């Protein structure tokens, strides 16, 4: 037991890697799913244990040295309240969606290829968890590539139902590779200047360099600015922040339902985490926000994302595409929280990473149930389903209320903190845009709800039943969690407060 405790940070990445490889070798038939389920369950337990440790028990950071090499030289995995929270989110969504995917993916994959699918599924989680836990800039890039490459494959899995999944995957492959290259170029610039790849070490060395900028002979000013700009563009592409979101709607629409739920809940969230990490604990907010004023640009992109994403969502006729555009808007809320540069803003970002993962995960999974039973997810397929699939529609509606931010759903908690932080910075217009975004969300969720509850089933459409239990239970689980964390906001605000104060260096 003590041995496991000691190795927890490494196990989170190593365990799914090893089980993923074993799946590729041995996971014939249904075994691949069982192995994935076991691995994601174990990883979830490990992340919750680490989260409890850094937030409630202390000390606030846990460090693990890969190969026992000391930190600036070797790769170190560093757990702090921020990445513990994001890891727990990724692992939770990973586990619940794996539970769901067993039945949902069955029609999409041929049995002889199933083991490769489950292997890639686990590699995707390896990459995402690794990005979150690593304290090394280059290791971050490697794991970013692992997660991205497996994501492209997973999106292309949708080609059996719709050939457009292939173009969506290629589109994302091209843009994702450009994003990863931008990140790599940025890291190379920082390495040129600091000679280090460790996040904490880069931060310490940059502080010495910034000190020279007030004097007559500022050094490396342009290099560092260029490096920061490249990293931010690269991460914004991964995060699907407006105007770099163009890959995202098609990728989410044409990917299989389980993959959409996994990506919406984890991939963009990890990108948001990367942005927080780079801005707050590598470059420092004095440089990024006070000196460069990039908070203005970031906030402007975030507000445009909220408005454009929500307006685009309103005019979609495909419910999955509607949710995908809504994700563009929701990412805007997270980015606005990052740009606010105060405790409430960071809390809003961290809580929204978690809450949006829950609500969007539940909604994509509910649409997966609809797809499984009716064979389509355009709005006319949803018509009159409220009576035929009551539980699925209820889960969708609960998620939708979370997107709007109705009190007693989790979305309300994050919007509360977000408006609070905007007012703290006296950003009245952004606070207004957040509220307008809620109204726009009401419109697009309302369109789906109207079709579900007030529409009639189309003439001579085949009879539909409630979704199978193995898909329904995970969907309801996430919807219930979204309600629970809306009513009991104590846990999420405690964790996010610890993360925000840790990043800003405020005493807890």
């Amino acid at each position, binding site marked *: 037991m003590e*041995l496991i405790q000691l190795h927890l940070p*490494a196990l989170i990445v*190593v365990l799914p*890697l090893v089980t993923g490889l074993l799946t590729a070798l041995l996971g014939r038939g249904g075994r691949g799913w069982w192995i994935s389920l076991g691995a994601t369950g174990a990883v979830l337990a490990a992340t919750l244990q680490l989260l409890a440790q850094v937030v409630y028990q202390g000390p606030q950071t846990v460090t*693990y040295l890969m*190969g026992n090499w000391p930190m600036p030289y070797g790769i170190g995995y560093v757990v702090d309240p921020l990445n513990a929270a994001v890891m727990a989110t990724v692992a939770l969504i990973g586990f619940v969606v794996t539970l769901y995917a067993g039945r949902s993916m069955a029609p999409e994959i041929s049995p002889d290829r199933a083991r490769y699918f489950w*292997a890639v599924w686990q590699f995707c989680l390896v990459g995402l968890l690794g990005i979150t836990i690593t304290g090394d800039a280059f290791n971050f890039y490697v794991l970013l590539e692992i997660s991205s490459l497996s994501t492209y494959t997973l999106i292309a899995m949708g080609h059996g139902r719709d050939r457009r999944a292939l173009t969506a995957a290629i589109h994302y492959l091209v843009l994702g590779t450009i994003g990863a290259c931008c990140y790599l170029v940025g890291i190379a610039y920082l390495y040129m200047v600091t000679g280090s790849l460790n996040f904490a070490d880069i931060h310490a060395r940059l502080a010495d360099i910034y000190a020279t900028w007030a004097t007559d002979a500022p050094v490396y000013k342009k290099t560092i600015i260029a490096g920061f700009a490249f990293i931010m563009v690269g991460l914004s592409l991964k995060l699907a922040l407006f105007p770099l979101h163009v890959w995202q709607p098609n990728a989410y629409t044409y990917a299989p339902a389980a993959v959409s739920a996994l990506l919406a809940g984890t991939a963009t969230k990890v990108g948001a985490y990367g942005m927080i990490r780079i801005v707050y604990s590598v470059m420092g907010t004095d440089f990024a926000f006070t000196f460069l004023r990039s908070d203005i640009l970031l906030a402007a992109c975030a507000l445009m994302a909220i408005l454009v994403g929500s307006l685009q969502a309103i005019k979609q006729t495909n419910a999955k595409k509607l949710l995908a555009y809504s994700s563009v808007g929701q990412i805007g809320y997270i980015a606005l929280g990052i740009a606010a540069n105060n405790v409430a803003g960071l809390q809003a970002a961290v809580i929204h990473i978690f809450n949006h993962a829950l609500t969007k995960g539940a909604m994509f999974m509910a649409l997966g149930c609809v797809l499984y039973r009716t064979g389509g997810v355009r709005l006319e397929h949803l018509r009159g389903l409220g009576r035929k699939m009551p539980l699925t529609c209820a889960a969708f509606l609960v998620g939708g209320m979370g997107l709007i931010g109705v009190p007693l759903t989790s979305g309300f908690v994050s919007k509360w903190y977000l408006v609070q932080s905007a007012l703290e910075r006296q950003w009245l217009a952004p606070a207004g845009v957040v509220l307008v975004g809620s109204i726009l969300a009401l419109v697009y969720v309302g369109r789906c709800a109207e079709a579900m509850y007030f529409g009639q089933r189309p003439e001579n459409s085949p009879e539909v039943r409630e979704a199978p239990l193995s898909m329904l239970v995970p969907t309801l689980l996430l919807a219930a969690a979204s309600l629970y964390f809306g009513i009991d906001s104590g846990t999420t605000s405690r964790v996010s407060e610890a993360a925000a104060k840790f990043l800003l260096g405020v005493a807890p």
Partner: protein
Amino acid sequence: MTTNPIMRVIARVNMPLMVVFAVYVQVHGEIGPGGGFQAGVIFAAAFILYGMVFGGAEMRRVFPRWISDAGSALGVLIYAGTGVYSMLMGYPFLDHVAIWPSNPGGAEPWGMVSVEWGVGITVACVMMTIFNEITEGTDDPPPGADTEMVPALHQNKTELG
């Protein structure tokens, strides 16, 4: 696939030499230039050369797909397994000291050798998998048909000419 006799003879003569050279680069990696990645590429190049000259199907006959598919995963598993072994012995992931705790200097090379074999196997198998993926089902004649193809190809040429 080519019918050029020079290519066919050279490929056949070179292939065993390349495989031997790959093994040399692999086992010599820790004290000279080379290592797992280079060895894997050279090993795969031997078979890919054979495949380019004699056709993908013929290559898959001498190096079956199931071996390259399994090898891709097996190599990484050897790499990760080296690290997991250290973890089981109570050392950090990939701390090779765990292999021979009383002699850390002697343990380090053994850990690296194990990791490099993992890298070599995976690189070789992935290179061949890529070749298989792009050649499979394109213009391969059925296996064993290469000798009968020769007159047919000449006929086509004269008709076109």
